[in-house]
């Protein structure tokens, strides 16, 4: 089966990466997703698991009549699984140019921040190749670092992994 080239990571100039981000927490780290791609934030609801999918694809949910996939970000980023708490949320994001909706599970949602171009630095290269395509960069806000995510890469790359698993 031919898998066409993965969606290209967003052009990484500081100017294009500046803007409003929704920040959320996973473990001890804070991450950010572009607000434009955030459709909805909701509490955890019953997820229907789908067999033969990778570990981080938790299943599907019914979003007002639409069935959308849900991905656990802790699992995706290889963090140890955690108990769901009252603050655990699902952020519904729009990916693939708005054509697809997906939910991502996060420990807690924080706030919406305006990130200036000057505050953004490129993510250091950890030498593990594909991993860094998820990272748009690092933002220095007050005294903390927020990791800016290219949510398309996070979700869509899992799609390829899912295809590869089922094809095996």
């Amino acid at each position, binding site marked *: 089966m031919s898998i066409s080239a993965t969606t290209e990571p967003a052009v990484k100039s500081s100017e294009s990466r500046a803007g409003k981000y929704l920040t959320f927490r996973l473990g001890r780290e804070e991450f950010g997703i572009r607000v434009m791609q955030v459709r909805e934030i909701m509490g955890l609801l019953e997820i229907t698991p789908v*067999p033969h*999918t990778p570990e981080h694809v938790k299943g599907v949910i019914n979003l007002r009549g639409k069935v959308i996939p849900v991905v656990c970000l802790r699992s995706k980023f290889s963090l140890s699984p955690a108990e769901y708490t009252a603050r655990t949320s699902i952020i519904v994001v729009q990916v693939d140019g708005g054509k697809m909706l997906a939910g991502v599970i996060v420990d807690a949602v924080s706030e919406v921040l305006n990130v200036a171009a000057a505050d953004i630095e490129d993510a250091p290269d950890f030498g593990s190749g594909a991993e860094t395509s998820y990272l748009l960069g690092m933002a220095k806000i007050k005294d903390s670092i927020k990791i800016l995510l290219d949510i398309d890469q996070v979700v869509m790359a899992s799609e390829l992994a899912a295809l590869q698993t089922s094809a095996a």
Partner: protein
Amino acid sequence: MSKSSDSGTVRETLSKAVDELATQAMLGDGDQQQIGALLAQLGKLAAQADSAGLHDIGLAARELSAESGSANDAVLAGLERLQEALQRSEKPVPAAPPTSIAADRELLSDFIVESRDHLSSIEANVLTLEQNPSQLDAVHTIFRGFHTIKGLAGFLELPAMQQSAHEVESLLDRVRNGTITVTPALIDVVLAGADYLKAEVTRVEGLLGGAAPTEPASNAALLAKVHDLMEGKAAKASEVSVAEVTAAAPAAEARKSDATESRLVKVDTAKLDFLVDMVGEIVIAQSMIRHDGQLVSGHAKLQRNLAHLSRITGEVQKTAMSMRMVPVGQLFQKSARLIRDLTRKSGKKIELDLVGEETELDRTIVDELADPMMHMIRNAADHGIESPEDRVKAGKSPVARIGLKAYHQAGYIAVEISDDGRGLSREKLLAKARERGLVQDGASLSDKDVFNLIFEPGFSTAEKVTDLSGRGVGMDVVRRQVQRMRGRVDIESHLGRGTKFVIKLPLTLAIIDGLVVGVGEHRYIVPIFVVHEIFQPRPETIFTVEGRKEMMLIRGSLLPVIRLYQRFNVQPRSTDLSESVVVVAEAHGKRFCLVVDELIGKHEVVIKTLGAMFKDLPGVAGGAILGDGRVGLIVDMDGVFGELAHA
């Protein structure tokens, strides 16, 4: 040009004469003498037009004047042509430049849809005419089709199409008034004209979709053929009586078809699909309210109202779904054209038998069914049906029969493709299968199993690969396409007598009648379509083979057992088969036993695709929203069982 002043006066005089003639002709019982005089005048003006260089007008005028004595309709038709020729002369049609989409995009898309409708009707009527060359009703319908397309093409500045349609229309007009008779050559030319227009419509569609501007294809060959036919026949006298008798009919027919057309509305399919989706959502939403235990318990009035609401939404949904249904006849008609072309090429004689053309299918299914059907018909014509000589030797009629039949049955729709040709040879199929290693020696296969071998990829027993079929890539694709529509294909065949393929499809791709089953805390939906029976097993009917595979004895047959919780990696309520429920289902033409914890109910559920992320998951066909708002996965039996078949 010095001729311009001449042509100006000639045009003017002609226009006046035409107007007067038109008035008289339209009156129906206008003064025949006056008409005769006007027509004679036209004859003279025709000569003047010719010398003024207005050949088009001259020709039309001359033809019209020759109608002297003919029925009114012929005169009116001739008048129309002359009027058009006059109009055209004032606005010369430019030599075909590359078509640019200057006209309104919406007008063009309407044109594409309308033209295709007309071309479809033209084709159907031409094939009818071929069988019944004296059926002038068909000629009139075909004529009107080309006439309308000509008008539309002219309006949208598509000169090549306009000219081609005009030429064929003129040809048909001569058939109408008896100047030319219907011959196989004529049929070919008319079909060639329709094909040319079809191709041009597609080209315009491409331009609309953003392709680079291209020139229209050359219609020189087509026009040459038309002119040949037109010149070949000069005498008309003997056919006049036929023309007169039937000339009265078309006017009435035209009025009748206009009336039916006004009862129909053309709707954008996108709007229709959206409506159907939204209605589906309403059904789910009201179902969620209705089944919300906390909300309704103790409120009898509320429950009654919700029941009422549920009945209404059910009706709305049925109506919305029915709007997507189209008669399968359109598919059959495509087949008619295909068979005609196939018989011409191969020299075999094949007749097409159609039953159930009004049977309605969801439009998406009709679209998806076209390819598989065409392929199976090609196969039948190519491999199934013998040459006329061979047939006579075998004691059969030299004319073979291919039958297409569509009917509803028990919640699904069946489409049969049968032929009275050679039939499938069990020996040949087995031999080929052994050669390919698909079958072990000593394996005992039923006839049905052997026939189903033709669905294996790369399988083909054709000695020669023709350009039509025989490359061995077809039947497995056909089966996959049918399965994608959640349908299945069955084969019946008798050596020497013929073969029958039966395609069974659900009525609609959007809704499924499902059995909701439970495994642990999960709910799954099994399409009723594949379910044979459900029961609670007795321990003594369960056997284990080789310590791993399980089988169950049911009424003398040993069926493989599959535990759904194993397939889907979920926790069941119990692993003890005697506490479970067994669903006997069908996959890949074979039956097997699916073990689940409990049977929850039977529901009609709206299918929701799971999205690109879950495409091609073995065992999961999609998702559906259950009455409590949760998502239930729809089980794909072939996928669940398939893992066993290849294990």
